[in-house]
């Protein structure tokens, strides 16, 4: 705690003989933590409401007749607290004995073993033998879906999972039924938990009652090599820890970052990792007589070089996919420039971004900034599926101030109440001229947020919609000096990085549709799997560079095996414009290589050697191209400064049809999640019934 810290209402108390000043209303537990005292707990969690039902955090407070639960006991002026007195230890030992009465002794076969709060705290407060000789209770296991495995006999009924699903995830489906000895944590009706955040239940469960189903019996925590990294399966940039054993990523866990994901993680990001071991490209392939045959790197490079010979630059093109890192995109861009081609693109979703200014394509309010908003308009985006973590932040804000949320798009349950203003561009007109009721809501708000998604930006009128959204943000006071309320919600981790690099058609260059429809003779796909590769003109020679045998590789004439995000150090820019880096947790399989190295090696084969031999040199070049890439670890929110908006195209009205959802199946959106058996089961469980219902 810094000396300069100021309090609204300071309260002084003594904890274990040390005087400390904290804010009034702080709980004794939190005050003790600030004083550096560790208090054991099961039910208390920083981000959940206080239940005070496990009783493990008992402390002694002078003048209180008996030990108090410190998590629910507010500090008082002059309070004298003892956190480690003989009385406290005795009380906690008593609590622990009761908790262990019905807890099975199955730690050797429990997946929580080694990272279990109960196990750890039993080391400090557990007795060496039991005094309980009656029958232990057993509880029937529940089916919470394909991601969360239950072992309810181990449950100590801390109710964290109930509070998480109700408060954070916004799906009040878990509860405690019956009472006393019969009490169970259950959904009552057998059903899978309908949340994109259900994997977090496993993290918050302090015992082995809720464990990861796909990870069951796979590894022990002490066998795993832990690497801090970044998730790339959506554009949030969730901070993760990759746990690997040998060549295999065993699991991925969220890492604390208050500005982005707090300590949560979306299910797709957490559980797609079994896709990293399947359908991998581990050696180069060459199409010979219509069939892909294994090849060596020199053969593959030679085949491309042969085909490339004599093709003019204007007939060469490159597309960067949703998972591409900035380094490889820059290398590809430089290679295309060396070949004299302006045909590069990254917008396979079809979104019409405006890259003339950086805040025209960023989520400028920032994810943490959502907590200051007082009205939100979502245009053509379903954040629950496109960025579940961001959606959880909106819900968090809604819990704080019940802010009004308007939606232009199809009706969905966003986990907080929202008002449907229309399902197409027309609804924006009513807001722009102030005639719609929600326009008044936005105008009254001090910090309104306008969020436009890919579903709106994709289409001929995308640029017009972007301009309309910006001008609406300005009109309702969303573009002030200290508040930037204009936001573009991206889906792909690579997108903002690509836009920052200018991975877009140059002067006279063709966009992705032009290239795909036969505009080029030679097309280089850098992990571009977002579109149906069958659309590519049959005459086009396709090079697929990537890590999965997905749509692009199936169509390719040459396949160059690359590295997935867990196998390389790559730079990604999240939708806020925050630059972050993944780290190598495991090595790429077989002969697969880091993507920038592949491009660098190929450039040498054709005699147009790219001017960087090391990753450091490439990153120096990255900063040259856009200084933003040098700002790792020092993110600053965009100030508006100039409210001048993106220009709307002169001609062309808005489309009349409604916005199609950008994602129809949250669980399978990219090559990794499409290769994941876990995600396939999730699709069958969650998305398939919804898609059937929609038909």
């Amino acid at each position, binding site marked *: 705690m810094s000396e300069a810290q100021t309090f609204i209402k300071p309260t002084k108390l003594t904890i274990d003989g040390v005087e400390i000043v904290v804010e009034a209303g702080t709980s004794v537990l939190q005050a003790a933590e600030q004083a550096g005292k560790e208090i054991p707990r099961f039910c208390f969690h920083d981000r959940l409401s206080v239940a005070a039902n496990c009783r493990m955090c008992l402390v002694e407070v002078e003048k209180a007749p008996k030990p108090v639960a410190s998590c629910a006991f507010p500090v008082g002026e002059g309070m004298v607290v003892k956190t480690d007195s003989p009385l406290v230890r005795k009380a906690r030992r008593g609590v622990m004995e009761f908790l262990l009465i019905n807890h099975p002794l199955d730690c050797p076969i429990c997946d929580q073993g080694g990272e279990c709060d109960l196990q750890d705290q039993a080391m400090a407060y557990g007795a060496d033998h039991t005094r309980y000789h009656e029958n232990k209770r057993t509880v029937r296991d529940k089916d919470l879906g394909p991601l969360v495995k239950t072992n309810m006999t181990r449950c100590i009924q801390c109710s964290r999972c109930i509070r998480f699903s109700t408060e954070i995830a916004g799906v009040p489906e878990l509860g405690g*039924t*019956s009472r006393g000895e019969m009490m169970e944590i259950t959904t*009552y009706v057998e059903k899978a938990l309908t949340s994109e955040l259900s994997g977090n239940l496993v993290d918050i469960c302090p015992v082995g009652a809720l464990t990861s189903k796909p990870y069951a019996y796979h590894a022990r925590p002490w066998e795993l090599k832990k690497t801090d990294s970044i998730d790339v399966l959506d554009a949030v940039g969730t901070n993760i820890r990759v746990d690997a054993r040998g060549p295999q990523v065993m699991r991925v866990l969220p890492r604390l970052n208050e500005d982005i994901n707090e300590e949560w993680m979306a299910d797709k990001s957490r559980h797609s990792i079994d896709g990293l071991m399947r359908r991998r490209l581990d050696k180069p392939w060459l199409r010979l007589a219509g069939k892909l045959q294994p090849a060596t790197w020199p053969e593959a490079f030679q085949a491309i070089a042969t085909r490339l010979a004599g093709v003019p630059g204007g007939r060469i093109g490159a597309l960067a996919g949703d998972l591409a890192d900035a380094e490889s995109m820059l290398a590809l861009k430089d290679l295309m420039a060396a070949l004299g081609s302006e045909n590069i693109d990254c917008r396979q979703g079809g979104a019409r971004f405006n890259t003339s200014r950086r805040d025209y394509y960023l989520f400028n309010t920032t994810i943490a900034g959502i907590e200051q908003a007082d009205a939100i308009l979502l245009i053509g985006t379903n954040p629950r599926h496109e960025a579940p973590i961001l959606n959880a932040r909106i819900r968090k804000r809604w819990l704080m101030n019940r802010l009004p949320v308007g939606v232009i798009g199809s009706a969905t349950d966003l986990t907080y109440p929202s008002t449907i203003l229309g399902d197409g561009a027309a609804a924006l007109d009513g807001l722009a001229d102030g005639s719609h009721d929600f326009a008044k809501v936005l105008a009254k708000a001090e910090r309104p947020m306008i969020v436009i998604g890919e579903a709106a930006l994709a289409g001929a009128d995308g640029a017009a919609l972007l301009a309309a959204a910006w001008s609406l943000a300005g009109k309702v006071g969303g573009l002030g000096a200290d508040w930037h309320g204009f936001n573009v919600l991206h889906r792909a981790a690579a997108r903002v990085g690509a836009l920052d690099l200018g991975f877009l058609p140059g002067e006279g260059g063709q966009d992705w549709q032009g290239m795909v429809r036969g505009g080029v003779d030679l097309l280089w796909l850098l992990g571009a799997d977002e579109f149906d590769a069958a659309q590519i003109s049959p005459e086009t020679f396709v090079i697929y560079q990537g890590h999965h045998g997905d749509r692009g590789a199936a169509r390719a004439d040459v396949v160059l095996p690359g590295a997935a995000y867990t196998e390389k150090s790559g730079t990604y820019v999240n939708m806020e414009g925050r630059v972050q880096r993944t780290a190598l947790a495991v090595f790429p399989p077989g002969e697969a290589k880091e993507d920038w190295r592949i491009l660098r090696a190929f450039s040498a084969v054709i005699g147009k050697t790219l001017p960087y031999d090391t990753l450091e040199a490439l990153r120096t070049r990255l900063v040259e191209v856009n200084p933003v890439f040098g700002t790792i670890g020092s993110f600053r929110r965009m100030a508006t400064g100039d409210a001048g908006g993106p220009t709307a195209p002169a001609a062309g009205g808005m489309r009349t049809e409604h916005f199609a959802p950008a994602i129809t199946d949250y669980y399978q959106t990219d090559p990794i999640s499409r290769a994941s058996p876990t995600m396939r089961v999730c699709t069958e469980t969650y998305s398939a019934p919804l898609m059937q219902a929609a038909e």
Partner: protein
Amino acid sequence: MSETSIAAAAEPTSFAFDPLSDEQIAIILKRYPPGRQASAVIPVLYVVQKQMGRLTGSAWVPRVAMDAVAALLEMPPIRVYEVATFYLMFNTKPIGRFHLQVCTTTPCWLRGSDDVVAACKRATGIQHMGETSVDGLFTMTEVECLGACVNAPMMQINDDYYEDLDGPRTEALLAAFRRGETPPIGSTIGREGSMSVGGPTTLTDEAALWNPEHYAAERRARAEAEAAAAAAAAAPPPAAPPPAGE
């Protein structure tokens, strides 16, 4: 017994409040301020249970009815499930027409609740607590103290207390129910309220009860005696206390 899987076979596929229930619910909801209607969950669940008893002869709360309550009170269904399963007064499984809730807590047990239980088993053919008789008329459950210990042993049948039971009287009681009669509620030995069995033993003087002057003389005499005692206490104490140990 797990509450997770409720008797699927008996579970109705739909539930709707009947006009009488609607009427009762309207009155109940008026007791709570707007936005706080979830507080009405317990009384509304009672309305459901009553309606089921009225319409099907089995007063229980099926899951579809809990869903209907949740929709009515605008709360997540799980919150209703939690309440309905927490309170044993709500039956989450079908029960017999007559719900025999036999108290076996200490006072009733000391006064012979074992005989009552045995009589219930004999009269209904039920083997264990929680079961329903083959004819579907009776369900027997064991309950904790219902607060009628003065007239122990007792049991509650549906909503009414039957007290001062013993084996034969219990059997007679159940036989009456079986015949379709409704025996008078309360003591089965004709005791009035919780008065002594042989009639009142105190406050027997009717005249004194209603005459405010009756005890005035007694009160005056007591006040005088107290004043005299106080005067004695103010006088000098005795010369020496008695030696310790005597």
